[in-house]
């Protein structure tokens, strides 16, 4: 007799051990096959699957609980740091954004509980100021300065070039969440207009023809782990 197959085979039902080792996609494929074979999913198998799902859910719950408590701890430290100050909401939001790169909804909710301020008021402030973001940042940020000096020296052409190369417009992120394209008012480097900021590094006096090279260098960083 040959050794037992470690992966489910097509002509018989999977064993509990095999079930436990399956990922979601394989599991779905197997259920389809069993339905074809029997017209239904055998009871012992469906019970086994629901037990596994239950286990997985519990694990996720535990992780979420842990996450919640880290969020609570983080928010509490931020609030404690500013607790003696009047009008501290904006400074706390700055601290949160510095930590996460944006203001996650869970954190905002926790902050609302911690400060005793309605969530709507917190969101009122977040959405009013351009600086606060509600979406997680992409891996790389490409920012075009659209101050007047840069505008006069062709920042729109730079932006168009970036748009067509990345296939997104400003304020959007590429589908793989690698590059976020944005426009800012003025970074105060008017002496070097038009300017681009890539991950905090400023490129001055950029020509349209150089945009490709700059994007390539971003991709190269990607290749290096």
């Amino acid at each position, binding site marked *: 007799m040959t050794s037992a197959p470690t992966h489910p085979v097509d002509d018989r039902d999977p064993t509990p051990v095999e079930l436990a080792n399956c990922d979601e996609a394989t599991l779905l494929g197997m259920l389809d096959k069993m339905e074809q074979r029997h017209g239904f999913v055998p009871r012992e198998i469906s019970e086994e699957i629901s037990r596994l799902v239950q286990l997985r859910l519990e694990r996720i719950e535990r992780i979420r609980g842990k996450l919640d408590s880290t969020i609570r701890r983080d928010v509490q430290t931020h609030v404690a740091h500013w607790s003696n100050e*009047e009008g501290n909401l*904006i400074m706390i939001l700055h601290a949160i954004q510095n930590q996460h790169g944006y203001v996650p909804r869970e954190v905002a909710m926790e902050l609302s509980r911690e400060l005793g301020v309605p969530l709507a008021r917190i969101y009122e402030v977040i959405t009013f100021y*351009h600086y606060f973001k509600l979406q997680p940042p992409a891996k790389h940020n490409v920012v075009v300065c659209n101050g007047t000096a840069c505008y006069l020296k062709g920042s729109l052409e730079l932006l168009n070039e970036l748009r067509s190369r990345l296939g997104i417009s400003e304020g959007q992120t590429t589908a793989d969440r690698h590059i976020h394209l944005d426009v800012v008012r003025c970074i105060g480097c*008017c*002496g070097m207009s038009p300017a681009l900021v890539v991950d905090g590094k*400023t490129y001055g006096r950029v020509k349209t023809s150089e945009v490709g090279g700059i994007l390539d260098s971003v991709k190269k960083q990607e290749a290096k782990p």
Partner: protein
Amino acid sequence: MKTLTKADLESLARQQGEGKEWIRVQLDTGGIAAGAETVFAELSRVRDEMKLALPILRVGSVGYSFADPVVEVKCAGMPRILYGRITPELAGRIVREHVVNKRLLDEYVIATRRRSLKLDGPVTQILVRDTGADLGNKTEFFQFSLLEEIKRRGLTERVQVVRAYDMGVYDEGVAVQLLPSGVTYVNVLAQDVARIVAESVVGGRVLDDLLWKESDRQVRVVLRNCGEIDPDSLDDYLRNAQGYQALKRVLCDEKPGFAIAELKTSGLRGRGGAGFPTWMKWQLTGAQKADQRYVICNGDEGDPGAFMDRSVLESDPHSVLEGMIIAAHAMGCSRGYFYIRAEYPKAVERVERAIAQARAAGLLGDNILGSGFSFDAKIRLGAGAFVCGEETALIASIEGRRGSPSPRPPYPSVRGLWQKPTAINNVETLANVPAIVLRGGAWYAQNGTEKSKGTKVFAVTGKVKNAQLVEVPMGTTLRQIVYDICGGVLDDKDIKAVQTGGPSGGVIPDKHLDTPVSYETLQQLGSIMGSGGMLVMDKNDSMVEVAKFYLRFCVDESCGKCAPCRIGGYQMLQILDRISRGRGSADDITALRRICTAMQKASLCGLGQTAPNPVLSTLRYFEEEYKAFIEGGPSYARKISRAQAGEASKETAKAVATP
């Protein structure tokens, strides 16, 4: 650091003076963006490699943005030399050639603006550059002939001839500067070379016919310490910039009310744009009955194209802080806030450090310098809302709310932050204060016009050769600023207009370039002083597009609280968009004017009231451009505007040719 006392400051006032030898690297945001950090690292590395004791210092920016990164070198037996556009490779050469071999680098020297009329001491270096329209063509030839002449007279060992990067003199033919004295000759011709060498280099006499006699138009009050001291060092400020002497004077030596009296004599007006007399603001705030008063420094520099506040905060934070403490003392405030844009991380970092240093030295906190006066300052970050530059909105933002403006009166000086009397001063205003207190209001009032006293910093950018910070006395004309200081328009095109005041300002066409700059004159021309951004536009820039650009900015930044601003701005943008696509109709211009009036009259705050300014001023001076867009579409309009500028330049050329 131990707590400073009055006696410490008095002894510091006597021992002024700086080190004999140093290299300064100008590390502000602009410089760092251009690579000044790597230059700094490379300089230090090469210095260590050569085992030199020369200190390499971090300083703020002197304001020459066009030449970033900028490095200044002073070493024994050599004049102070400013180098522009320095790369790491050049940094190594500076140490090896300039510091060790005492030879200047070719092509990177920025000539000093401290020009002299006398030769004091033998000439050791000659800078040469062709400053005419055909830039740089004759520079090599003149360097060669000067060198030949010097070789002929056997002076090669003593005198070096170097091509300069920038002479500070423009459109004056070939310019030659003799160092170390700073005597500058202009419009030098080939036959003058022998004379310069014979008379000036050998004979030590100044050639009067070639001498450039105009002194520098810039007067540096606000920028006095920028690029001169390390912004991260309280010690440097105390020793080399008369730091906190003005505070000592106000707290310990003079009667209460001294600062306000001096400010009244000085005629200083708010540099944030509106131009309200600073002494009056302080007096009004101080006169209110209240248990608590606040002073706020407005560093929410949101105008695109303006960067003087950032530069001052980054290069000289202690001056602004000292100004704030003096203001607080004059008004009896015990708390102060710096409201700074979060987009200026370097400025935030440096002000934070300045506050911590001042606190450690006892210049902030309880009983400052033993005078019984207590004050503390904190930082609040802006979060990218232009409207927060408006004072009521700024107060709302510090209180942690949305930055929506509220109607005035009551003015903040009556009821401001947390309902207490509050004085809000711009960065530049506060940076002026220590200088005025120390040198007197009358000294400050020497500069400027009758109603606008003193100096003003402008950030000149756009289509200009040397984009830079400029500090000039009020009353200097736009033409002097653009042509004499900044070298004129990029690629020697014709200037079309200068835009001042950012999105709340307007354009000033070339025919008004000879207007002396002051709060009143700019207002008469339909623009405003604003915070001091100055955008130069050449004939290729479409005024309709420029108006649209600024209006879009204001529409994006409108907080939405009042209808005229929210709806009016949007409707105007729609019309402008239509016009710029060539789909406008003849009624559109009338409609634009009507909406403008409505917005000006009915908007709640300064943002809405001034948002129509770019549209109104372009309509006032360039209505034919709007009409060209409506009648013939974009490409026709572009052709027309170029042709007009061409004709104008031909006319001026004719006028010059037939005097």
